[in-house]
């Protein structure tokens, strides 16, 4: 038997966390429960964050959108604010798992799992997301790229939880693209993914560009050199090919059961070509 806590307010949460310091805290459980079944994670107790109203929902706060950490992927997908302001995240969420997984899994869970293959992470990186962290001692904010420390590792401190993630509305962007290569069209762990957020002038010049890749390094990978090469350039096949060289230099993929490092490196660059209009 294992204790499972379902705190309904923050006081109950802090009390449960104080009583069960070895407990695993989760929201969704689509990674944790699989790992527990496989025996790779041993959890003497579980604390579920899904009943906490403070961690639920989506809010528009001026220039920012706040996403509650325990909001499910399905809820985000059907949320009009997300649909209107964060089409990049919507594209990524549509590729995440399957309907049952999206009904169960949460964005906070996807962030805290900190898998290089986490489908929401590349979009959140290019959206310059910040995470909101809370503990009985207070709150703090951290850029997402600083929060994620390595594969499966975050800077979450003992006694601290992730309550939400905050992104600025990408008001200037006129091209939002998420591309994901998996071993099949659904229920697929990412082999390579790319999130791109661009502002392209009517003349076809890249005014600004943010790019990030999943599954090609220990965490989400970025390629400032590729971004620099494209900024101020026309969106042509040749320019994208040239920038792709920088991408392949920037990523650090590994071989695994799904694909080789060489393939991931190649395709990480190639995905830039998907940005070509039409």
């Amino acid at each position, binding site marked *: 038997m294992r204790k499972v806590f379902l705190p309904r307010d923050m006081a109950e949460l802090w009390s449960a966390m104080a009583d069960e310091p070895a407990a695993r805290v989760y929201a969704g459980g689509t990674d944790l429960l699989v790992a527990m079944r496989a025996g790779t994670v041993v959890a003497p107790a579980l604390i579920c964050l899904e009943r906490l109203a403070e961690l639920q929902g989506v809010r528009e706060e001026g220039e920012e959108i706040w996403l509650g950490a325990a909001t499910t992927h399905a809820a985000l997908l059907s949320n009009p604010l997300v649909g209107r302001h964060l089409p990049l995240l919507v594209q990524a969420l549509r590729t995440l798992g399957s309907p049952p997984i999206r009904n169960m899994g949460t964005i906070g869970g996807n962030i805290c799992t900190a898998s290089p293959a986490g489908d929401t992470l590349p979009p959140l990186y290019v959206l310059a997301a910040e995470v909101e962290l809370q503990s009985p001692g207070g709150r703090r904010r951290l850029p997402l790229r600083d929060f994620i420390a390595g594969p499966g590792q975050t800077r979450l401190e003992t006694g601290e939880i992730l309550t939400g993630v905050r992104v600025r509305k990408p008001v200037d962007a006129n091209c939002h693209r998420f591309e994901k290569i998996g071993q099949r069209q659904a229920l697929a762990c990412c082999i390579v993914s790319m999130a791109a957020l661009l502002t392209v002038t009517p003349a076809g010049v890249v005014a600004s560009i943010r790019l990030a890749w999943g599954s090609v390094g220990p965490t989400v990978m970025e390629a400032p050199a590729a971004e620099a090469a494209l900024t101020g350039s026309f969106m042509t096949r040749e320019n994208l090919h040239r920038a792709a060289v920088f991408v392949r230099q920037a990523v650090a993929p590994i071989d695994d059961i799904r694909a080789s490092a060489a393939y991931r490196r190649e395709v990480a660059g190639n*995905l830039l070509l998907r940005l070509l209009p039409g």
Partner: protein
Amino acid sequence: MTTRPPKIGRDFLRPDAPAKAAGVEKYAVDHYGENLLWAGVRRAGVPHGLIRRVDAAAARSLPGVRAVLTGGDVPGTNRQGIVHKDQPVLCDAKVRYAGDPVALVLAADRETLRRALALIEVDIAPLPGVFTIDDALNHDAPRLHEDHPGGNALLQATIEAGDGAKALAECDVVVTETFTVPIQAHAFLETENGIARREEDGRIVIIVSTQAPFRDRWEVSHALGLPMDGIRVIAPYLGGGFGGKDGATVQCLLALAAMHADGRWVKMWWDREESFQAGYKRHAARLHYHLGAKADGTLHALHCRVYYDTGAYAHLGGEVMALGMEHAGGPYRIPHTRIEGWCLYTNNPVAGAMRGFGVMQVSFAFESMMDILAARLRLDPLEIRRKNALRVGDRNSAGVLMTSSTGIGACLDAIADHPLWKDRAVWKAAAGPNKRRGVGLAAVFNAMGYGRGLPDTAVAKLEITPTGRFVVYSGVADMGQGNATAFVQIAGAALNQEEGMIDLVQPDTDRTLPSGSAAASRTTYTYGNALIRACQDMRRRILGRASMLLLVDRLEDLGLLPGRVRHPATGREIPLAMLAATLTTPERFCVYQYLMPVVPDPPATGKAFKIGFPHLLFSYGCHLALVEADELTGETTVRDYLAVTEAGRILNPQTSVQQVQGAIAQGIGYALHEDLQVEGGIVQTDDLGKYIIPTALDLPDIRAVFAQAYEETGPFGMKGLGEVASNGPLPAIANALADAGAARIFRSPLTPERVLASLQQGPGM
């Protein structure tokens, strides 16, 4: 439910569909018992070694553990196997693959079972492993089965026809290539499981997810030294089988457990990981081909060497390879052939039966070779196939004379006339940016039945109840393929009775009669033939009794109508309920045994095959895949798919389309995704997150049409079609990728990584 008698050739809804859709149909896995014990197996975990010690003391002392059994506790021979009895129920001295069972635990609940299994200390002295085809061919390799005279070759065989390989010298062109295919897993929804109990009279009852309940009884009897009539096997509907439940999985272990359970029910249910690690698999294979033709494209000679990795135990490995070899030349006329095969023991998971049964492997080779040859000769790939397609009166590449329905030509003609083929250039030219499109063909065939040497027989049993209803006692399991549906349809049509008047009993060795395995595309053909004749007997018996009751002195003056017998001349009728009440018990039953015909004069080749060669009847198919490949990622999408199948007359279009579509879905998985990876004997892809089967989003709409024929020996003219369509997708998609301008791929699955490399390499031959 229809209120009129079913018609042959019309859609007939599965009678089992409502109960399955509502979730009330009980599969084996839905069976529990009061005071149930759970049984589980501790597996070796090392692929090859000698057992020094199995210490179960700690496990035995765990509260809730009922018994821990090891090899020494197995009565009888402790050996199972369909053809060769080489597989221990519990290993006694040696382990030959990582999934080999070394101890059996009975416990009060699943958690205790899990803990007890972990507490067993297994000390195995490792032996060097044999993990590849080349390892197994090495004469210095350690032998898996010391007593086997062939060393690590379970079977080595040759089929030769005409002048054999010598005729390659007479060809204007010879193409030579090597193909490699991986292990495929069945990945059925319902994993291997069952429940068993020893009754008060000492008999063992097993309810199990199985394709061969009657053979199971014999396996258990042999392995555990129990009398055959002391074992009852019940086979409910299966949640998928595909060949993986043709052969003992949990049966002997469950019966052994039941012998130590004091009359309590014992349940064993492999989880998904255990199914991947210990369940039977499709053979990985390597295929070396030399195909020679005349300048006009006439096939002249084939020489091939095929190697099948059969894993640690024989199972049906030799028979699987035999069928692959029999099909190695495709559905073509090739006068001179030499087909050599090696079926090899390795320390990999046990390979056995799987839909297509050895034929899927060679289909990739011969249909790729046909396109390579067509390209070399600058011939149209459809025309080279039509030119060489088998016809009645030809000999196939195994030297067998084709005497029955041989419809590959009709399948090819149907493709030629189809808009998808005729308009292919337009479709290809419409590829979007960074995409390339190609169109590929595959002409395939698949034998039906067990082949010579193993009688393919079924015994139908039909009852009219005292209230005038009918009961069909099916002796062949239904794993979803729909044979139970066919039996109700056949009985309804043959007896002119409404579906609602017919009940069907699933296989039960106490109630139904031995009718072979649900395998070899044979179930509806063989049992259906027996059932039609039992229905004819029943009809005569009913009319005979009616003749007495109605005082009509000629049977032909009477008609059997739904629920009644009528004398049309006078309009007099007698309800079946009234008639049946006058029948004594022996009169109420009709039993008929049917034996499938065989090749009357087999060619003097393939002498190494003791059973299963050659075959008389084949179903045919021609497939067309419209494929799009992504130049940036190598992702391959099947955009459209057409399959034309000749399987005699189609009894039930709906279930026939379902069978073809299901086979193609599994075949597309084999083509694009599925690859059971084994490293050093350990399965790496042991869950459905790592072993990739296609989802609905990975499959195109599959157009399944039929080139109907009439098989003279078939029930209402049908032949089996459970397997033939699975052979088409891999070669059709591989040919489509080559047509799209990719370098030809000789190793499957056709992953994005391989496709990207071949797209970058560019067109080859």
